[in-house]
């Protein structure tokens, strides 16, 4: 059966779009080459061991994050096999085995072979330990990768699980950005690493990581402590076995019914009336009400919102821990920025439900749809970011920074709000249809939206930045208010005009996929939005057609 599944996966893979495969392949080859290079340049066996431990941790980290950040995994979904007369554990085992097919595991094996080389160079008698360690490492990393991915998907079925997934996401996003802040000092120290290795505390932490155990086992054996070596490798074998078992269990199809987890009434629902109070009649009120309810109740939307808040919170904490006040002070702005990216594929997120907007098109409904979404996001995100900003000023002990924080919040909230709705229209990318979603990243690829946001928000905020730099914080606050409001209004206007002009085309993008949508665009030239849409079509991957 494993053979059949492997062939099925490679067949499905061939029909998919291979936009990112080149980039991923380059990273993998580069990583494997770097890992081998380290074993060559290390000045001593001790330093080599430390560097390999670090690289092992990086490989494991990449395996854990990769599938969630890109959209690569889960081509074969367990639910496809529910009706076959197979034991659930058989399907789980088969799906687990398919994870080892492909360039990723192969290149990981090449990289991990450096452990065997390390063993050979240290003491030829330890080669067998090194080879075993190499194999176990690959099994451990690939299994862990699937385990984390599937666990995140399983978590989306309950509120608590969604909350945990949000914390994870927040941590990942904050870690990715904080990593940039830490990269400078790391690079300046890199020259010395090959010579002298790491300081003692880092070595202690590194050696404790499970991915380091096979290398530590080789080191122990090389120094004659064969008992310790077998102990370490035995522990790693047990850990790998436990990971494999857990993965096989999670990969087996689940048979519980949708929505069974909910015991309470949906959020925002009153017993006596269907209306949210204070919402005006007419299209705008209709959209704001629908959007607020969707943000409250849809785990996938809630994930975007809450992970943005957690990301800001973690950035603040990282800044405090590293004693970098300017990082702490950026907590609120960071949340606004992450939310701008999180809301940048709202139409893809809603899937083919856009048909309602198309057939219900009235004189003012398309504008209301865009403006309503903007208002709903603002209502949800503004209180949290303002609070984060206030707290960051208080705990960092830099009261003088408050006008800068306020100006930053005003401008990023406004510009981000407008930009996310514009990108939602122009770069709409369908994911798995809403009622068929399983995994945390089933909502559609947003690569183009994320990069466009990162590139576009600074220039769009430039009036505020210039005034803040030249005239000081308090002058920047009113400028930021105008800058932010103008950004939200103008970008929103661009968005609803574009959507009104291309309403059936936007629907076709979601309903029929990229190839049909492509034909509605000029092949070259056109306005900047056409260019952006073409880029999104050729870069973002369709997760179509359905889920499981």
């Amino acid at each position, binding site marked *: 059966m494993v053979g059949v599944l492997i062939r099925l996966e490679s067949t499905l893979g061939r029909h998919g779009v291979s936009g990112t495969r080149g980039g991923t392949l380059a990273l993998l080859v580069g990583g494997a080459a770097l890992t081998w290079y380290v074993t060559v340049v290390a000045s001593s066996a001790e330093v080599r061991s430390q560097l390999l431990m670090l690289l092992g941790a990086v490989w494991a980290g990449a395996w854990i994050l990769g599938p969630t950040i890109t959209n690569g995994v889960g081509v074969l979904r367990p639910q496809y096999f529910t009706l076959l007369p197979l034991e659930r554990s058989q399907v789980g085992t088969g799906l687990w085995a398919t994870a080892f097919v492909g360039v990723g595991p192969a290149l990981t094996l090449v990289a991990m072979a450096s452990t065997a080389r390390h063993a050979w160079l240290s003491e030829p008698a330890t080669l067998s330990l090194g080879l075993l360690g190499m194999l176990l490492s690959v099994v451990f990393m690939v299994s862990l990768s699937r385990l984390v991915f599937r666990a995140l998907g399983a978590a989306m079925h309950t509120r608590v699980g969604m909350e945990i997934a949000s914390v994870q996401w927040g941590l990942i996003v904050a870690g990715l950005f904080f990593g940039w802040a830490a990269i400078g000092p790391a690079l300046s120290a890199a020259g010395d690493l090959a010579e002298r290795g790491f300081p003692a505390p880092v070595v202690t932490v590194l050696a404790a990581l499970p991915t380091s155990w096979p290398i530590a086992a080789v080191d122990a054996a090389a120094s004659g402590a064969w008992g310790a070596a077998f102990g370490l490798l035995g522990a790693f074998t047990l850990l790998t076995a436990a990971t494999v078992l857990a993965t096989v269990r999670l990969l087996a199809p689940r048979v519980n019914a949708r929505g069974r987890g909910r015991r309470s009434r949906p959020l925002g629902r009153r017993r006596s009336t269907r209306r949210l109070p204070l919402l005006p009649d007419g299209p705008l*009120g209709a959209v704001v009400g629908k959007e607020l*309810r*969707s943000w409250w*109740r849809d785990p996938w939307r809630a994930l975007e919102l809450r992970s943005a808040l957690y990301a800001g919170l973690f950035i603040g904490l990282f800044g405090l821990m590293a004693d970098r006040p300017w990082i702490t002070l950026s907590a609120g702005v960071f949340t606004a920025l992450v939310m701008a990216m999180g809301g940048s594929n709202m139409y893809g997120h809603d899937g083919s*439900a856009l048909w309602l907007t198309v057939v*219900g098109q009235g004189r003012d409904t398309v504008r*209301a749809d865009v403006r309503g979404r903007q208002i709903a996001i603002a209502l949800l995100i503004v209180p949290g970011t303002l609070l984060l900003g206030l707290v960051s000023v208080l705990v960092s002990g830099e009261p003088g920074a408050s006008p800068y924080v306020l100006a930053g919040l005003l401008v990023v909230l406004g510009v981000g709000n407008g930009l996310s709705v514009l990108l939602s229209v122009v770069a709409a990318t369908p994911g798995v249809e809403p009622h068929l979603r399983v995994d945390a990243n089933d909502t559609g690829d947003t690569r183009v939206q994320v990069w466009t946001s990162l590139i576009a928000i600074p220039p769009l905020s430039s009036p505020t930045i210039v005034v803040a730099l030249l005239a000081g914080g308090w002058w920047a606050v009113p400028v930021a208010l105008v800058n932010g409001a103008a950004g939200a209004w103008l970008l929103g206007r661009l968005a609803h005009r574009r959507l009104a002009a291309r309403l059936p085309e936007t629907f*076709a993008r979601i309903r029929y996929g990229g190839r049909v949508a492509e034909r509605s665009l000029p092949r070259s030239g056109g306005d900047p939005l056409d260019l952006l849409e073409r880029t999104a079509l050729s870069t973002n991957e369709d997760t179509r057609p359905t889920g499981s």
Partner: protein
Amino acid sequence: MPALELDSLTKTFDETRAADRVSLSVPRGSWTGLVGPNGAGKTTSLSMAVGLLRPDSGTARVLGVDVWAEPVEAKRRLGVLPDGLSLPERLTGGELLDYWGRLRGLDRDLTRDRSEEMLRILELDRAERNGTLIAEYSTGMRKKIGLATALLHTPEVLVLDEPYEAVDPVSARVLTAILRRYTDGGGTVIISSHVMALVERITDRVAIIADGRVLADGPLDLVRGDDPALEDTFVRLVGAREVGEGDLAWLGF
């Protein structure tokens, strides 16, 4: 003036011509069935007729109003139920109708009265009291709430793609009664289906479509002619694959 007019609608996906100059005229107050095999172009044609899919050429008119030239005016007169699409999944049925009524510019009390009545008649009221979200609805329930959205603003023309699919027999009777009431009151209905017996029983006009082309169109009796049943006409026009003597011999015990 016809209630709905499909005028040479053409659409090509990749190399496949999904609709090839599809023309159809649906008189006011009639109930028309659009039948055809899977992949015949029923959904593509109807999508182009209601403004969901821009045709490569041709157009559609609702009571004389061009869907592609004056979409807002045309869509005001149309009620649409597409097949198998998502809805705002995290709303309850009642909340969806409330949203839809506001979006269509209906009065608050009118929306409430109509949606309560419709939920009751379509037997969705219990789900509504339990706060069941649309994401938790069965396929049949999704059809029913979709029909409610199509009817809420009393459109003059109803376009329903596979409205009976996955609907249980009891609900199907209710659905037919609702649509009958609607046509008796002067409304026009066009439904697509591949269940001939159903179309033959409930509609008064029929159009047969295959390979993106309309093969026959008119009052049921005229299209059927001397054939004993619509299915025979259909098979005669579309052609049927026979299962030969030696085929599938392994299907036996």
